[in-house]
């Protein structure tokens, strides 16, 4: 039977990802000295499992690479080697390489062997530094070819076995009858039992083995010659639980051989001669194994990697099934009512519908919950990040995390990763001061970065705080004035000043470091978070530290929207992007360069977007004073959207336009309203850039 192993590869890669996380966090714990005994065992086990699986699923580069890691970890685990900083760092680096190897396996591309070899060399380097004899690897040496020289000239016609199980052999579940059956399948078997070891009946323990056997196994013409390795294999597991000799049988020379037996009895299996035939057969067998492995490797290449999967706790699935059960009951109740409906049942119907609504809402909530993962998935990369960066910058930094179990939608989680990394890097680089500065300020040498997450309403709040120097208010303000972002006369609140760091193109670092100054500013962080329907704010206290607070919706599948009407069409504007809505005063409208219209709102001029023009629909009125202006923020700039009317605010379920129709600029999705009509959800950044492309063709009549 040939089994396609590639079907298990996906599972293997997923569990290896988990293994990598165990490796990484374990190594970091070992490094910081916070690890207990179990940690090194867990780390070893993770490497060990990856190695075992990789070997089984023919991922040979991974298997041989993890083998070296495992060897090193094994020595650490046994206490044969000290857990040194150098070793841990080398292992951490190996974890990265291993991750690349696994990624390559996932994508079915050849791995970058240069890095792998380099990492392997480093590992071996660490290994060789030990005064310890290298760990024994017996696998290869067991079948050494020392015996080649002793080959018999004539092939034997069979074998004579003397088999004396030790008393306790049966207790390991090894059954002599099973072994005899196997022997008998090799050739013609003849056996004599030696009963001399049997004790008196009353002293006999039925669980012990007292017998020994002399077995003659002759070649059977139909089954072919028996090779010694096949016999040894049968006794492989009991080698140490019995006395066994296997001697070649020569029909003519049987007498002479027997006399030799006496000397050999003391020796075990290995000492006797190995006929050439056996060697040839083993080689042939190996070939078939390789052939099978090759075949499965080829098959693996064909199957492309599938989309991401989520692991869902059984409790969540159970709840879901439970809900569906209730829904089915409600549905059948209602349909029964419908079959024989009369007006006196109206109250029952109302009740039934209320129940249906409850069921639906609960079901919706549970389905949403399936996509929810603890934020620890996102947090877990930070210990490593902080470890590496603080070493690089020569700062002592402790990372504290809390609320790791707070759940968040998988998609939101994936998208919040990069902004989080940026903020943490920023705290490391700019937030926490150099050690001597800290000491001079009377603070502890070790800086602290705290990651915290918790739920608040329909939102998740993520806080990144440091106990560093705080934001330099004067410096920020001066820079903003220099850059012309604010005027020197302007009287800004502290909050407004600190908020300047999110302004596009604003960077206070005097020198761009390779840690946080990567050309990505805080403005990008805020933009990315806003795209997720969230926001980020900063609060700071000079000398005490800075806290960034991210507020994100728990899911991207539901959105708080403002329904607006243009003619007969209803559109939805995400509530988070709306700053305010107002009635238009026509005096405030100006046009720039004759084409672009702007609206003067207090001190600002904001461009106007005529929704009816962008989407080519018929508005109620072309008179500006009949319209309402919705001021929105998108992509760093404000804009005023002209609509006929503001309708209600409500939560809407987002349906993808891409999967149901196609991608349209300016529209992020659609939803189905209570009355069954479809309403489009506006994508602010897209809409604003779309509006810029459109030459205004009609104009509102002023007046």
């Amino acid at each position, binding site marked *: 039977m040939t089994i396609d192993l590639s079907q298990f590869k996906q599972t293997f890669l997923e*569990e290896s990802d988990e293994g990598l996380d165990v490796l990484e966090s374990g190594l970091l714990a070992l490094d910081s000295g916070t690890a207990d005994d179990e940690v090194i065992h867990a780390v070893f086990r993770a490497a060990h499992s990856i190695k075992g699986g990789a070997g089984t699923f023919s991922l040979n580069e991974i298997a041989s690479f993890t083998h070296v890691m495992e060897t090193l970890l094994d020595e650490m685990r046994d206490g044969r080697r000290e857990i040194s900083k150098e070793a841990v760092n080398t292992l951490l680096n190996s974890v990265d390489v291993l991750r690349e190897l696994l990624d390559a396996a996932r994508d079915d591309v050849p791995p970058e062997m240069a890095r792998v070899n380099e990492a392997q060399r480093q590992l071996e380097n660490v290994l060789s530094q030990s005064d310890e004899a290298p760990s024994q690897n017996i696998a290869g040496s067991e079948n050494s070819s020392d015996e080649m020289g002793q080959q018999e000239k004539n092939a034997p016609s069979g074998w004579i076995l003397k088999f004396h199980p030790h008393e306790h052999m049966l207790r390991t579940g090894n059954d002599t009858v099973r072994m005899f059956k196997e022997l008998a399948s090799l050739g013609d078997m003849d056996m004599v039992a030696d009963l001399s070891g049997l004790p008196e009946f009353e002293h006999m323990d039925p669980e012990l083995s007292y017998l020994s056997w002399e077995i003659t196994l002759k070649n059977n013409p139909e089954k072919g010659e028996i090779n010694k390795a096949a016999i040894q294999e049968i006794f492989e597991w009991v080698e140490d639980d019995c006395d066994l000799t296997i001697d070649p049988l020569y029909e003519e020379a049987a007498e002479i051989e027997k006399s030799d037996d006496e000397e050999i009895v003391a020796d075990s299996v290995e000492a006797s001669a190995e006929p050439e035939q056996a060697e040839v057969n083993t080689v042939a067998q190996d070939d078939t194994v390789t052939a099978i492995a090759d075949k499965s490797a080829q098959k693996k290449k064909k199957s492309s990697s599938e989309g991401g999967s989520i692991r869902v706790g059984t409790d969540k699935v159970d709840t879901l099934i439970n809900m569906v059960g209730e829904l089915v009951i409600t549905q059948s109740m209602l349909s029964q009512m419908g079959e024989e409906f009369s007006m006196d049942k109206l109250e029952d119907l109302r009740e039934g519908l209320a129940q249906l609504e409850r069921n639906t809402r609960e079901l919706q909530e549970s389905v949403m919950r399936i996509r929810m993962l603890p934020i620890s998935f996102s947090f877990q990369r930070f210990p490593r990040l902080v470890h590496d960066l603080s070493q690089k910058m020569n700062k002592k930094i402790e990372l504290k995390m809390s609320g790791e179990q707070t759940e968040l939608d998988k998609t939101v989680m994936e998208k919040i990763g990069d902004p989080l990394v940026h903020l943490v890097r920023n705290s490391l680089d700019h937030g926490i001061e150099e050690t001597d500065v800290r000491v001079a300020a009377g603070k502890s040498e070790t800086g602290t970065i705290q990651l915290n997450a918790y739920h608040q309403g329909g939102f998740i709040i993520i806080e990144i705080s440091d106990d560093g120097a705080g934001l330099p208010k004067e410096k920020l303000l001066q820079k903003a004035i220099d850059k012309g972002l604010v005027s020197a006369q302007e009287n800004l609140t502290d909050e407004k000043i600190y908020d300047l760091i999110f302004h596009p193109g604003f960077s206070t670092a005097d020198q761009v470091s390779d840690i946080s100054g990567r050309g990505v500013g805080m403005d990008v962080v805020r933009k990315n978070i806003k795209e997720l329907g969230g926001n980020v704010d900063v609060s700071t206290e000079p000398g005490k530290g800075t806290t960034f607070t991210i507020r994100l919706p728990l899911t991207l599948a539901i959105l708080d929207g403002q329904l607006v009407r243009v003619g007969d069409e209803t559109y939805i504007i995400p509530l988070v992007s709306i700053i305010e809505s107002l009635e238009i005063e026509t005096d405030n409208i100006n046009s720039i360069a004759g084409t672009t219209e702007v609206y003067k709102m207090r001190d600002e001029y904001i461009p106007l977007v005529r929704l009816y023009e962008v989407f080519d629909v018929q508005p109620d009125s072309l008179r500006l004073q009949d319209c309402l202006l919705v001021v929105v923020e998108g992509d760093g700039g404000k804009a005023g959207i002209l609509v006929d009317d503001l309708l209600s605010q409500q939560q809407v379920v987002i349906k993808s336009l891409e999967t149901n129709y196609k991608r349209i600029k300016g529209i992020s999705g659609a939803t189905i309203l209570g009355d069954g009509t479809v309403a489009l959800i506006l994508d602010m950044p897209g809409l604003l850039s779309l509006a810029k492309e459109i030459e205004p063709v009609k104009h509102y009549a002023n007046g």
Partner: protein
Amino acid sequence: MSKSILAVDDSTSMRQMVAFTLKGAGYQVEEAADGQQALDIAKTRGFDLVLSDVNMPVMDGIQLIRSLRALPTYKFTPILMLTTEAGTEKKMEGKNAGATGWIVKPFNPDQLLNTVKRVLG
């Protein structure tokens, strides 16, 4: 009545591979992710064969074998270790705990089936 096998491994992919292979050959297979789980299952019923990984969290394979051998039902049940340790040390530890034998990882499905057939006949 087909023979029943208890497959114990903390690695899901290994467990899946072992279970898939054995079920395909007509055996009944129960799975456990660590020694403690295996022991709990083993206490509720008998199996014709136990296949167990050695390195596992909660309770490792060696301890599982020792605990199984202490149960009357499992005194003589064949228990095979699935082990990557080619060295004699682990094998001996397993044997001393009462293991019947071992299958050395990595193994392919055919090798697994051959060994299981040998033990179960």
